[in-house]
């Protein structure tokens, strides 16, 4: 029984990893590649770890596996956020078919501050008034 | 398997050498990293490869390991070599950083006045 579950988890995990890799290759821009790699990668490796936990079965291994999964869940989004943000702000080209971009023009590269939409609108109005 | 790894080691050496023959000091440093990896893998390969038998004695079996075990001595050597390589590399990286600041060029050809 455990063997079956382990096998199942293993296959699922591997396929997810495959998905992540395919996504990395096939997706048209950086951010979308990251969608594939971060999520599928984290989930895939997590599942493989679960497979190992199921396979060995001991509490010791379970503890390790849960720790590993926790670590992945903690670190993967941070990394994704950092790369995505950096990529966006240094101007990595986005896919041509992007629908909207709320971030555009809201980042002040001098003092590294990012406006919220409210602030942005306020500033726009202020500038408009000044221009008039 | 050692045949396959031997090939890989050869390629690592080759790329490392190719890089340290460049004029760019940055490539030089990257070459040094590869060189260190190459030497470590060479020891690893040369001392014999063993699958599925880490030199760890399982808990509870407070006795001698039975059967084949991967060579722990070679592993200890490589570990030492890795760490030494890391220290040296850290130094080299900062060195090229400083050299670039002083010489203002990433070009070994601008660094040949001291010799003669």
């Amino acid at each position, binding site marked *: 029984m455990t063997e079956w579950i382990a096998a199942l988890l293993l296959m699922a995990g591997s396929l997810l990893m495959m998905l992540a890799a395919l996504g990395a290759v096939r997706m048209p821009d950086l951010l979308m590649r990251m969608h594939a790699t971060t999520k599928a990668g984290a989930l895939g490796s997590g599942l493989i770890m679960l497979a190992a936990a199921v396979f060995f079965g001991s509490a010791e291994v379970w503890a390790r596996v849960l720790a590993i999964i926790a670590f992945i869940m*903690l*670190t993967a*989004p*941070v990394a994704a*956020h*950092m790369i995505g*943000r950096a990529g966006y*702000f240094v101007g990595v080209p986005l896919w041509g078919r992007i629908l909207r971009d709320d971030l555009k023009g809201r980042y002040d*590269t*001098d*003092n*590294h501050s990012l406006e919220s939409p409210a602030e942005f609108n306020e500033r726009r109005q202020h500038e408009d008034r000044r221009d008039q | 398997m050692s045949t396959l790894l031997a090939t890989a080691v050869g390629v690592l050496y080759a790329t490392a050498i190719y890089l340290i023959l460049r004029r760019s000091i940055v490539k030089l440093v990257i070459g040094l990293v590869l060189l260190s990896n190459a030497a470590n893998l060479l020891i690893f390969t040369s001392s014999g490869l063993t699958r599925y038998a880490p030199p*760890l004695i399982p*808990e509870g079996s407070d006795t001698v390991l039975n059967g084949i075990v991967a060579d722990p001595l070679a592993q200890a050597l490589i*570990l030492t070599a890795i*760490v030494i390589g890391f*220290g040296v590399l*850290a130094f080299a990286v*900062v060195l090229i*950083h400083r050299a670039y600041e002083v010489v203002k060029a990433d070009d070994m050809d601008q660094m040949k006045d001291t010799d003669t």
Partner: protein
Amino acid sequence: MNMPKQPDSLILRVTGHFLLPLLIMFSLFLLLRGHNEPGGGFIGGLVASAAIALHLFFTDVQSARRLIWLDPRDLLGWGLSIAIASGVIAMFSGLPFLSALWTELTVPMFGMLKIGTPLMFDIGVYLVVIGTVLNILLSLAEAEEA
């Protein structure tokens, strides 16, 4: 001081603050169990250094320095001294340099523990590794900020 500070990232900072003690604890765990499971002074030291590198990424050099209340140079000196001392201890009993001395300690809750100079040695290694990586990273980062 007119140079732009590095961009702040709330996500990195908060998660980092959470990860930092985790990493340090994990590094100690790797250090202490290294004699029996994968780990040891180096590995532990490298993980601890990674933790402080992380701290460096979400704060600045000053606060990373504050984090380890010792100057990294002290870590080097003390780490080396501890490692040497662990080897010298045996010499007072007429044994050669680096001979291991073991003692069995009965700790409530943990039962019998074998404590020896190799562990002390590994602690020295741990400190030196941290000291090394920090010295290099922090001074480089300082140069970067300057």
